């Protein structure tokens, strides 16, 4: 009996290891510096993680479906630049700029989805190509100029990035709402199960009559939708953007998703775990800053944590610490 109890505790630890690590980390830091779990600090962290987090929600779908999306960083720059430009265009204004930007960003997602889902091209290279192409598109669109909103006090556009409701920052509300909706979509609907099936075993999925192409296509549409939302928040928060605002974010997003325990081989991961992954990155950054360290120390800490997390994950699965590679 005791043996089984130990085993099942071990199993829970292995499955929820990242959650346990997160809780230990939080408790440790809170004991060291109570300001760490101050409600303002927590909101501050979640708010600054919201953009990365929203992007990570979409990429979770793509990764569970067995693919990668390296184009989300460029796409974020694109959506921010476009929405700001259209906002300044008298023919559009804020009310039309937002849906127009969503339509354009979703078109980019559709291109990804078509090439990878229907044409079955390798997702790493396609989205690498799209990273470059969308960056070029953004630069061509903006002529290399930064975009700014001229009369920042006369527009309600800032609400998405700067506003609060019931004392909670709007970006946090959007992040939580989107995480809830996408979490249910992934965990509780037939579509969600198809995403797991397509990523876990594409051949079996095909033989069970699951339309692989359409499912993969949809994962990229979801990813693009999340990027557009994140881009809106980014643009709204700063009321201006550079062409390179999202540069490098694609790999940070991927790091958060992997930290949450999604396998790059597809078929595993959850929205909840991704949110944990995002929060871990956010709180590490915050904790190190509170400890008086420079922001870049987090990069090194993140590196070590990612490798340890993935290593422990696969070591538990294979039952051996060291790899069998000769």
């Amino acid at each position, binding site marked *: 009996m005791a043996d089984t109890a130990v085993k099942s505790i071990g199993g829970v630890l292995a499955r929820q290891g990242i959650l346990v690590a997160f809780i230990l980390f939080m408790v440790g830091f809170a004991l060291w510096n109570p300001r760490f779990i101050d409600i303002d600090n927590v909101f501050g962290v979640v708010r600054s993680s919201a953009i990365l987090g929203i992007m990570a929600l979409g990429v979770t779908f793509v990764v569970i479906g067995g693919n990668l999306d390296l184009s989300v960083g460029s796409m974020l720059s694109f959506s921010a630049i476009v929405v700001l430009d259209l906002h300044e265009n008298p023919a559009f204004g804020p009310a039309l700029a937002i849906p127009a930007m969503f339509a354009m960003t979703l078109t980019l997602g559709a291109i990804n989805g078509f090439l990878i889902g229907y044409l079955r091209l390798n997702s790493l290279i396609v989205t690498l190509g799209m990273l470059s*192409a969308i960056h070029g598109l953004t630069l061509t669109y903006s002529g290399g100029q930064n975009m700014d909103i001229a009369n920042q006090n006369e527009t309600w556009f800032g609400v998405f990035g700067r506003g609060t409701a019931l004392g909670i920052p709007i970006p946090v509300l959007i992040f939580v709402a989107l995480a809830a909706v996408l979490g249910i979509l992934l965990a509780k609907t037939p579509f969600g199960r198809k995403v797991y099936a397509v990523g876990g075993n594409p051949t079996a999925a095909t033989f069970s009559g699951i339309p692989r192409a359409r499912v993969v296509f949809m994962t990229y549409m979801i990813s693009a939708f999340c990027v557009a939302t994140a881009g809106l928040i980014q643009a709204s928060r700063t009321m201006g953007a550079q062409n390179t605002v999202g540069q490098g974010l694609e790999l940070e997003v991927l790091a958060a998703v992997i930290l949450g325990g999604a396998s790059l081989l597809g078929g595993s991961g959850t929205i909840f775990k991704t949110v944990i992954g995002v929060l871990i990155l956010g709180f590490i950054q915050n904790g190190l800053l509170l400890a008086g360290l420079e922001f870049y120390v987090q990069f090194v800490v993140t590196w070590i944590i990612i490798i340890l997390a993935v290593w422990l994950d696969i070591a538990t699965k294979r039952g051996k610490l060291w790899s069998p590679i000769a």
Partner: protein
Amino acid sequence: MQNDTVKKLVRNGAIWAFILFQLVFFEVAGRWWSLSDGAFMDMDSMLLLLKQSAPIGIIAVGMTVVMINGNIDLSVGATYALAGIVMLDSMNWPFMQAMGDSAIPLAWLFALFTGCLLGLINGVIVWKTGVDAFIVTLGAMLGYRGLVFMYNGEQPTYHLNWTMVDFAEASILGLQTPAIVFLAVVLIVWLVMTRTIHGRNAYAIGDNREAAVNAGIRVGPHFVLNFVLIGFLAALSAVAFYSGSGSVNPNDGMLFELWAITAVVLGGTKLTGGRGSIIGTLGGVIAIQLLRRGLNHIGAQTETVNLVIGTILIAVLFLDRQLNRKGAEELKV
């Protein structure tokens, strides 16, 4: 059989045909629209092109080897920056300053050693933990960049030594030092990959790891060796570039990994490993640089270059798939 030969010819020749096409196109287009006074294909600008493509090119050669081996390295940009910082900063150390110009080779050695060490760390982690190289080097990309910042904060690191600058700008037959280093690297690594046991094994492991293991090839040491090689080459690239420029910004080298991978894939190396060539990568590197120049030559906005390269990358992938349908099933990270 004959079909295979045709395929092989198309695959290996495609990048050179594309380069030729670009040369002719930009030459003709430049004259036709009379947007440019000079000829596109003049010797000086072609030699300069080789020099400009050296930093990415040297790294791309290493990336080719790692990808043939079935791995990938996303941390090269950060390795490049860190090696550059170590090189320039070490010139400011008191005992190095006391040595005068004879400290230069030592500074280069420090940089190359840094590159090898970072590559070694990646290689050993990939070997011993069994974590996919994509994840290991993705983490390292962040971690090494963190080290770059920790070294000197957000300040640029600089040291100007005229002997070093003279060396970097010295030229033989019109080729400046970075271009010579690039071509030498291409030649040497090409020889390693085609003429040595290590090269043959690297192909074998990338093609079918299980079969390679069954054939008695020790996979791990080859992985490590190739990661050390790409770390070394990233550092060599930094040596060739920063000796002349004398100043490293902590953000330098960002996105180098993606450019290098783009060049490698354009050059016909397979993402899944087992197939590819150093010479093809040379073609890929030149093609990208030529495109950059060419678009500039015909007066297109330089911004469009990213758009064009991204589109071409996807088109190449599509054509390659059409050419070799069997490959489609193998394509998986």
